Every structure is written in C-alpha cells, then in structure tokens.
C-alpha cells in the first residue's frame, strides 16, 4: 500500500514538473519575425464612382412614336449622356507598399522607382514594392462577352451583374450564340459548368458572407460601401507582410472604360487567363497583368485615380487610410507637390 502511494506521488510530481516546464520553454522562444497582417482603408471620392455614359435613345415624334429613318427603314436614334454613380463603376484598386512616393517623374504621384535599364523592353524602372494587395480582382465571369469586364466584390449577385450591363450600361450581355442574357442564374450555371465548381464561394465573383450582419447578402457586403459623405470606402488587409518601418502604402484605381471592345480595364490582359477551346468557342478569359504594383505607370491612363498622399507606416498596428483623390490627367501634380512641401 505504501509502495503504491509512493508511485502515485512520483507520477504526480513528474506531471507537475512537465506542466511547469512546457510553458517555460514556449515562453522562451521568440522568432523575432517582423511579419504582420497590415490593415487599412481605401476611400474613393464620389466623383470617381461616377461615369457619364453615352447611350442611344429612339427619336420620338410629337405623338411619342418612334421616327423611322426613310433611308434605312429603321427607327432613328440619338445619343444622349447619362450620368451614373454606382459602386459597380469602380474597377480594381491596387494597394502597394513602397519605399516612398515621387511627384516629379509622372503627371501623378507614383512610387519611387529603381534604375532604368532593359531599354529594348521600353521599361523605365521598377518600383520594387515590399508587398501589396487588391480591393477587387478582375475575374472571368464565364462568358466571352464578360472577359475583362467584371470585378469581384462589386456585384451583389448574378442578377445584379445582368442589371448593370443590360439596364445601366445598356450594353446587354451576350451568350456564345449572340443571344442576350437576361437571367443571372444562366451566368452562374455557365460558371459551374465551365470552371467545374459547385458553389459561389469557389467562384469568388459575388459576396458570400454577411459582412455587415444585416441578415442578408446585400450591398453592405460588397468591397466598397457608400459612407456618410457619399464617398465609397473599403477595408483591406495585407496578409503576412514583412514590415519595414517607414514604408509607404499607396493605391490606385483602374477606372471603368465603358464601350471598349475587349476590355473595360487597362490592367486586364485579354489574351491571358482562363482559356476556352471547345468546339465553337475559343477565347481567353482575361487576367490582370503581373507587374501592376511594380510598374503602375505602364497601365495608368487619364481618368484613373491615385492616392495623392501615401501612408507612412511606422507602427504595424496602425490602420492606414488612403484617399484616392487625385485624378490622372485632370489634377496638377506640381501643385500637389508644392502643397505637400508647405504642410
């Protein structure tokens, strides 16, 4: 009996020591890695989400009937401008981490660049980003017609997509046979077939999480949500970024280019991405270029928006705020530079 008790005591003591030692060792080991999930917000002014569309309207006579062109026998049309402010106007936003910003080499603020070489490639230097992310990606929406025209996180559901193209842009979605697509489920089912997936989560075209806890998947679950000022705001997270004190976050928006033949966005390469090569259907689904953070200048066009000020990241737990308030081709970078110097 005594022997039995001694054995129990020894076991108990060993367990106590083991329990005490494990946290001791765990606490002693620190990798000292400077890797963090960096978080921030992107704010896009309302005017950046506003586009003026040129749409055709039938010419009506005094009785409200369409006027027929005597030469063609078809109803006459006239182009009118239609202004649209909508979250669906917003293209992808590219967020990068850079060593600094430069206000002298381009007509807009641009990340500092390294030396220019490889002249035969028409390259002017790489910005050598430390990392980055996007708010919304160009994604293949499973119809050739939609290649390079759909950005993730902008459409509540597939019907919303149909509404945008058919009713707002008045540029109806066509299927492979050239027929107008009027039903969002047709797009979803085409995606399931082509991409061999079984859920919207796998497609990552539309939101599938009730981010705002409203009880439904709605506009509040998109990447960008209209704020109290009427601007559009999104949060971003750069996962597992190597943190370098003092580096600068900067972002730019690829704006919608409605009516373009092959792509609505200059950052989309229409000759890459998903490839369809079935019997009567041969096309590429489109894919973002691979050096958008390294060389934004290659893809920036008038009308795009960039952050006029970068966010200098000094503490990894800071929350960055980037306001894309500088319109390329419209705003004056020199005036901005002088303003920043005076502040």
């Amino acid at each position, binding site marked *: 009996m005594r022997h039995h008790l001694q054995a129990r005591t020894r076991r108990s003591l060993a367990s106590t020591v083991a329990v005490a030692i494990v946290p001791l060792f765990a606490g002693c080991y620190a990798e000292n890695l400077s890797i963090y999930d960096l978080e921030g917000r992107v704010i896009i002014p309302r005017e950046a989400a506003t586009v003026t569309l040129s749409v055709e309207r039938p010419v009506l006579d005094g009785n409200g009937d369409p006027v027929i062109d005597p030469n063609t026998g078809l109803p006459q049309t006239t182009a009118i401008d239609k202004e649209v402010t909508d979250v669906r106007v917003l293209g992808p936003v590219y967020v990068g981490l850079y*060593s*600094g910003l430069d206000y002298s080499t381009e007509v807009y603020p641009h990340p*500092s660049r*390294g*030396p220019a*070489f*490889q*002249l*035969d*490639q028409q390259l002017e230097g*790489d910005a*050598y980003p430390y990392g980055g992310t996007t708010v919304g990606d160009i994604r293949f929406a499973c119809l050739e017609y939609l290649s390079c025209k759909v950005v993730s996180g902008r459409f509540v559901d597939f019907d919303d997509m149909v509404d945008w193209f058919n009713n707002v842009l008045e540029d109806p979605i066509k299927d492979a046979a050239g027929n107008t697509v009027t039903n969002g489920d047709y797009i979803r089912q085409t995606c399931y077939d082509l991409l061999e997936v079984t859920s919207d989560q796998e497609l990552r075209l539309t939101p599938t999480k009730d981010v705002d806890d409203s009880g439904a998947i709605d506009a509040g679950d998109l990447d960008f949500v209209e704020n109290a000022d009427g601007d559009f705001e999104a949060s971003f997270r750069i996962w597992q970024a190597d943190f*370098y004190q*003092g*580096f600068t976050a900067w972002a730019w928006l690829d704006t919608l280019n409605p009516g373009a033949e092959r792509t609505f966005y200059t950052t989309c390469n229409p000759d*890459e991405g998903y490839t369809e090569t079935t019997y009567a259907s041969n096309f590429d689904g489109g894919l973002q270029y691979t050096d958008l953070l390294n060389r934004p200048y290659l893809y920036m066009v008038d009308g795009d928006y960039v952050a006029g000020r970068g966010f200098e990241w000094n503490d990894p737990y800071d929350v960055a705020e980037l306001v894309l308030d500088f319109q390329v081709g419209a705003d004056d970078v020199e005036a901005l530079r002088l303003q920043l110097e005076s502040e």
Partner: protein
Amino acid sequence: MRRIGWMGLPLVAGGLLVGTACDLDQSFLFPDPIEDVPGVVDLGNLTPVPLSTRLNVQDQVIYGELGPTGTALTGGATFTFDGIGGSVCVWVDPELAYWNQSVSPADPVAEWSQPDNVFDDGDIDLTGGLSVYYTGTPGVEIGDFEVRYQDDLGNVVPIQLVECVNTDEYFGNPGAHSGRGSPEFCTLSNTLAGTSYTIVMSAWSLPLDDDRLAYGLLVTEGSCEDLRDFMGTGGANRQGDECLITGEAIIPGQEQGIDAAGLGLPGPTWLGSDEPDNWSDSEAFEDAFCSFTLRDYCRAERQQITRQGLTCAWENDASIAGNGERCFCGDLSDTPSGGSF
C-alpha cells in the same frame, strides 16, 4: 589490448560523423575537365559584323567548343564589344537541335513523331549588359550583372542589370531561355557608342555523349529581327531560327582555324571562313529540322544504318567508344507510348 568500453562507443560514432561531415568535396559528381577544351573562356573584344552580304556574315560566324569545368561551377564563354550607338544582335546556337517527340495517340504531329537523339545536344543561356556591372572574371569564373540598389528607405534590392533579354516566343515574357539545342539571341538596343558591353554564354548543360559543347556565335549590327530578315529566317516560321547558324556540330580535335587565330580568338575556335569540319550529315539534319522534313530524314537515317548492318551509338560519342555510328535521330525502341510520361 584495451577494449573500448561502452562509454567509448558514442565517442567513436561522433568522431566518424564529424569526419564524414567535413568531407564536402563533391567534385567526383562532375565530369573531369578536357584538355584543350576550356570550361571557362574569354573570347576577347569582338566587333559587331555589318549586314553586308550573307556570305560575309556566314564567314564571320565564330565556332567554338566548351568543356566541363571539373567543379560545381557553371562554365561558359564571355566576350565584350564596344557599343556602336545603335542596336547590336547577339545570336548563339549550341549543338544541335532538340524536340519533344509527339506521342499523342489522338493527334500526333507527324513532323515530331520520330525521337530525337537527346545525348548530342547542349544548352547555352545567353545574358549580357554593361561591362561595368559584370561580376565575373573573364576566362576564370562566370558571373552575372547583379548590383545592390538602395531604395529610398536605404534597403538593399539586388537587381540584375541585364540588357540582353531573351523573350519567350509563346507569351512574350522577358527573361526566358530557349532550352536544349535551341538558339538564343537578344538585341541590345541603342548601345552607348564606345562603351563596353559584356556578353555571357553560360554552359547550362553539356552534351551527354562527349561533354563537349560546340556552338556557333554571331554578333551583328542592328536588331536580331534585322538579322533574321537578312538571313531569310524571319517571318512566322520561328523554326528557321535553328538554321540561321548551321554546322555547329564541330568534330572534336581539329586545329584552330587560321582566320580565328588571326582575329586573336583563343582556341579551340574557328571562323566560318575557316570551314571547320562538322559531323557528316549534321547540316542536312538541321535543314530537315527547319524545313519540317524530320520524319523523312529520321526514317532515311534509320534505313541506312540498318542496311549497312550498323548500330547507332547514342549515349556515347561514336568516335570515342567506337561502338556504333553517330545518329542524329533517337532510338525508336525508346519511344514512350501515347499519353505516358
């Protein structure tokens, strides 16, 4: 005699381990150097050839050989040229020609349905830039063009300041290499007049049959597109690139060419005007590759070998092993079945 106690065994085992771990010389894994065939060589300062006549350009092709370094270090050839204020094309063609055999059961490509002799091909990777950035030692060690750029934060970003950029034919992406037996070329645009450029021909792999990698090299004024058009290999038929330089399958052991020596090139080198001997039929083989008649060529080669009662020596150089004939097409019995790896 004292016996080693049980406590001594770990000491012995540890000593063995330490002793073994210190032996880091793995050079036995690499082929020995070959006398008179350099592993690393510097060809000196070359002058870009003007595109005057085709014959003149063909006469200016530099043929040479590269061998093993005997170590884990990559070998190769380097040379410099002075910028001319315009574009310069560098074109190198390693021996000989290579293709993947078409084994698709549903849609075989007749042109590639015969196997290649994979033992007689080598691979040269081309790169180049301003000599001031070159990190290697000409004739001693192959280097690169890496500089340590400091960004605005003072952090170092290693950059390869490469001006000789190969672009892949399929996607148009820069920085590609063309692979075994295939020519590589690059245009250095708007070279700075009088400024020295260094070109590196890195011997990525030597032919398995004899460890001697023969090559043909052209350095010309103008772009490589200009050169293609001039030599008649331009247009959509990129297969023709293989035939812009022909005859690079040099027979080993020849005296250095007189014209090459006159130009100050180190041996073993020859100019096209020296007309070095190449393996019999190798140029016909290249022609077949470029003119899409490989299937007929390979069938004829096999029939001829069979008719003469000979065998092909693929894995060993026929001239060394003496156990067969040099065949440019591969072993038909080694053909994988359709759909297999």
